[in-house]
């Protein structure tokens, strides 16, 4: 169990999966009454959240409400000021896909190298690394392209490579921070197909940060609504209702939530 708790620089325990994991439905992540933020002022307070295998969580809310801050706490980059963020699996079993990879075009890289770097921080024999690479490429439609230059890929293919870089860790928890904001509709659909397959076949839990309510309506099993420093978690069918979304996005009038879907 990995645990981040209490103080911004409080104790961090990192280890293998705990005994709880023997139960297939045991939570992968539990956040208890956490206050999370930078400096002296917390961005989020009283956060309670529990993520179990196979769940697809969508984090929804306006800009600057703390969605990425919570993601950083889940990834272990920042510790809660009070409360706890407990991870019931190894950090090596978390995959992360950023909004975009801001690679310098001067840097040469192949798809094999780009994806393989997703294993940084883990220890695997060379043969297993090769197997994982092929597995990740096959799940993202990049099979046979491992020797190609990353810069020869289209925007959608680069995002697939970013997904493969997260998948190579064979994650039990996949965290995506606004991964579709720079994608066209086709590439966005491809990405969500991959996530659905991972959820269905491998029971990977997913945290998906986005502004796009329509994506949540189609794919979420659970949502966390962010508003004014608070997080409201729940089942998608309970929370993806117009009046709740209007309140979350602080919009008034009919169709406000639909409008919020395009608020980017």
């Amino acid at each position: 169990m990995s645990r981040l708790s209490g103080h911004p620089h409080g104790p961090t325990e990192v280890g293998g999966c705990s005994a709880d994991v023997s139960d297939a439905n045991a939570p992968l992540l539990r956040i208890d009454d956490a206050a999370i933020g930078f400096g002296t002022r917390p961005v989020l307070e009283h956060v309670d959240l529990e993520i179990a295998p196979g769940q697809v969580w969508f984090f929804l809310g306006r800009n600057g409400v703390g969605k990425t801050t919570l993601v950083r706490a889940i990834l272990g980059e920042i510790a809660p000021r009070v409360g706890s963020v407990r991870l019931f699996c190894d950090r090596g079993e978390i995959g992360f896909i950023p909004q975009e990879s801001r690679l310098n075009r001067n840097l040469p890289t192949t798809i094999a190298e780009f994806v393989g770097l997703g294993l940084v921080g883990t220890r695997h024999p060379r043969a297993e690394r090769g197997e994982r690479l092929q597995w990740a490429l096959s799940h993202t439609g990049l099979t046979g392209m491992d020797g190609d230059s990353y810069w020869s890929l289209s925007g959608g293919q680069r995002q697939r490579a970013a997904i493969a870089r997260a998948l190579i860790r064979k994650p039990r928890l996949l965290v995506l921070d606004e991964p579709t904001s720079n994608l066209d509709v086709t590439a966005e659909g491809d990405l969500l197909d991959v996530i659905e397959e991972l959820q269905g076949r491998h029971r990977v839990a997913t945290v998906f940060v986005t502004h796009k309510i329509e994506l949540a309506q189609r794919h979420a099993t659970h949502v966390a609504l962010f508003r004014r420093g608070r997080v409201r978690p729940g089942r998608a069918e309970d929370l993806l209702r117009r009046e709740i979304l209007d309140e979350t996005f602080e919009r008034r009038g009919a169709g406000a939530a639909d409008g919020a879907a395009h608020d980017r």
Partner: protein
Amino acid sequence: MIADFVASWALFRDAYLVGWLIAVVLALQGIFVVARDQIFIGAAVSQAAALGISLGMVIGSAFSEAPIDPYHAHDSLSAAAIAAAIAAAVLSTNESPRHSFEAVTGWVFLFASSTSILLLAHSPHGLEEIHHLLSSSIIGATPADVGWFAALAAIAIAIVSLKRDALTLYMMDPPVAAALGVPAHRWSRLLAVSLGTTVGLSMRSSGLLYSFGCLVLPPLIATQICRESRSLFAVAPVVALLTAVAGFVVANRFDFPPAQMTVALQSVLLTLAWISGGIRHSVRRTAYSVRDEKP
């Protein structure tokens, strides 16, 4: 040509060794500078080191009746300290929304350029020394310098060997590196301080042109040669070493300043690498378009 160089070895051994070691260490650190497109940080920090040397000379002369001794150790230390502090400060402005990185780099360069001269304007020996350093017209070294730079090179090579993949990811994609457990912020601070320290120390031995050239040109050449970023850590220092050796040999034979010869050689190589890289890119694009058009 080689015989001439071997004949000069006894006289210039320390200078040659220090020049080559500086090339290797700076090329390794320059990979990160090139990766972040912060090329002119090298010039700014080198100039800040010159300010440190000027300051060292002025402070040294204040406590001594003797004329300014351009080879006094405290010049090197103050140069390294100021350069390290400046590098850390400049690189941290990357995260500031108030000042652009280019603006701060330009300010450092101009402020350090002017004040390093003004401080020694009434000290003919000191002013001459600063002019030598800025033009890299000498490469001077003691056996102690050889030891220092050998230690720096050993440390840099050891770190790269042990952490190559993590360093590659940190260099390519810092947010993802941080998410995967790499202490990216701590590494950035360490890199800034070590860059400033190395440039500060190398300025004293080799001057601005050589320090700046070895910092950016070998990594730029390596980016044109390599297919993967992790290879840069091997190719850039090898390019730096080979060009420095060739530059020193040719300079010795034809009686040219070695720093200028090395940097000119590196610049020519980079031009050739750009040309051949452009040709390879065109060929590859053609190959991809042919492949994509196949039914």
